[in-house]
Each structure stands twice: as structure tokens, then as C-alpha cells.
């Protein structure tokens, strides 16, 4: 069912690590980090099929992480997570079309997996 390498980025440690564990149960290879800076470090040294990023984080926002990733990896599929249907500020509205998809919290794991597969498939 799995087979993909996934990077999860969210500043909520229990959320991101539990989500990672659930994906690993489904045979995904997952790295989970809690900041944008840590995500950029991981992306420098590891290859991922898809990156899932929370929009609202301290320091580098999800949008800033996505913009930085796009410089070196313009085709890497990125899925954004947001807490609200309505974006909380202007930055969250900016350039959302750079993302492959965005999902609202709480996340349904089956929907996340379906979206990841669709994004990777589109990228191929």
C-alpha cells in the first residue's frame, strides 16, 4: 500500500509523529520534523516523493518553506495542511497554486494517502 518516501512538517510534535506512525503502519517511509528549517535540512540530504507541510508554523511558515523548496525542487509534490477553511492571513492565500493540494485539519488518513498518490501520479 505504501512505498512512498514522505516528509511531514508540522510544529505540533504529537500530531506529526502520530501521523508518521500511522503512515508507517501502512508501509510508507516517513520522516517527521517540527519546523520549516528542519524540513529544508532534510530535503537537502534526503530524496522524498512528496512533502506535507502545515501552513501556520513559528519561524518559517509553510508558505515560506514551499517557496524555498521550489528553488531546488520545482517538481517535488507539496501538500499543504491548514487549520481553517478560510485562510487566516494574506500569506496563506498567496501562491496556493504552487501546492499540489491542500487539506484541512483534522486530516483523514485515507484522504491524505489518496491525495499523496494523486500528487505523485500527476508529477510522474
Amino acid at each position, binding site marked *: 500500500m505504501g512505498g512512498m518516501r514522505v516528509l511531514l512538517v508540522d510544529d*505540533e510534535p*504529537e500530531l506529526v509523529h502520530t501521523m508518521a506512525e500511522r503512515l508507517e503502519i501502512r508501509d510508507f517511509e516517513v520522516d517527521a520534523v517540527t519546523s520549516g528549517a528542519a524540513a529544508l535540512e532534510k530535503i537537502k540530504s534526503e530524496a522524498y516523493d512528496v512533502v506535507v507541510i502545515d501552513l*501556520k508554523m513559528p519561524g518559517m511558515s509553510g508558505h515560506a518553506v514551499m517557496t524555498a523548496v521550489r528553488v531546488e525542487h520545482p517538481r517535488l509534490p507539496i501538500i499543504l495542511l491548514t*487549520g481553517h477553511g478560510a485562510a487566516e492571513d494574506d500569506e496563506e492565500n498567496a501562491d496556493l497554486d504552487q501546492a499540489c493540494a491542500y487539506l484541512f*485539519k483534522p486530516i483523514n488518513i485515507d484522504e491524505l494517502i489518496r491525495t499523496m498518490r494523486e500528487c505523485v501520479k500527476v508529477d510522474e
Partner: protein
Amino acid sequence: MSEPDPGAPLLEQKLMFFGRISASLSHELKNVLATINEFSGLLDDLSQAAASGRALKPERLQSVCGKIANQIGRGEELIRRMNRFSHSVDEPVASVDLREVLALVCDLCNRFAKLRQATLERRFPDAPQVLTLDTFALEYAVALAIDLALQGASEQRRVTVALLEPASRGRCQIAVESADPLGPELAQATEHALLAGVMAHLGGTLDVAPERIVLGLGGLDA
């Protein structure tokens, strides 16, 4: 989210502040629910694995249940803050212990500080400092002062909200102090103009210095 306009009526500004805090609290609550949702999903995953013959350690379940209980506690605290904040508009003027009002504003503004990678600390005297005033306007003023102190913050900036010991004739002062010097450009910031307006409404004073912003209020209740 649109920026408040210093020229807008105070009631309109207060409403925007109410909306901003409510949105922030709801965002935090969403994270609590999202985390509980993941724990619930994990319990389901583990029970399915157990049903198909995999060993399931009781301590694994206990650990997840403990984390769920912690998240519920976090959610309860957020709702308690939301409730206290909502009730601060009940009366146009009320007699309040300033330490309680400042503690609530610090709790409410913690997320804004965290998003800027700053820390928000507090320093209050042991004795109550009771004053009669427009509580909601004071909450708005202190939040604006914190915003101002966080502006252009370097990473790891430390901002402290301090309730100073009453000076002459029992007049109260609230200081929002920054470990890094505040830039002179703050005087031009929108928050500065907004803060000056609210302090005028409260019949108080505003003093913005490089190391701190001081809100001067009236005398303590007898």
C-alpha cells in the same frame, strides 16, 4: 486579515481585536482536535493489527490514552481562556485585579509571540492591584503593546509584561519590556497610533522608550 485603521472608531477596533483573538484560539483548538483525531486513528490502527493477530502491549495503549488526556486538558485550558476573554466585554467598566487581566492577555498573545519565535514572560507583584476601568480596552491596549514590542523582533527575542509597583498616589504602570532595544521606527507603526488612541480612551498615558513601552493608568481603587 485586514489591518486595523487608527482612524476607525474604537468600537470597530475592539471588534477586530475580538475577532483576531477568537480566530487564534480557534486555530489552537483545531490543532488539539487534529491531534486527538490522530491518536484516535492510531488506536483504531492498533486494534485492527491486534485483531489480525499482532501482539498489542497494554503500555502502548496507556501511553496513547495519556496523551489524549493531555490534549483534552490543553483544549479545556483554551476554552477557559476563550470564556474569560468573552466575558471581559460584559460590562463597559469593571473593577478588576490587573494581574489577572495581564495574565489572560499574556496567555492569549503567547501564540503570536511563538509564531515570531519570541518568548513572552510576565512579572507581577504578589499583592492584588485593583482598578476600575474598561477591561476590554485594557486587554486591547496590552495586546497592542506586545505586538509593538514583537515588531521586527530578532529570533529568540524575549518580551516581558510587567506590572510595576504603584508609584506616587497609587498610580498604576504596566511595562512591556524587550530584551532587544525597540527601534525608533516603532513610533511610526500603526500599533503605536492605535495604542495612543486606546490609552487616551482609558484616560492613561503612553511612553515608548527603546527598552520598554509603559502604559500609565489611573489610581488604584481604595
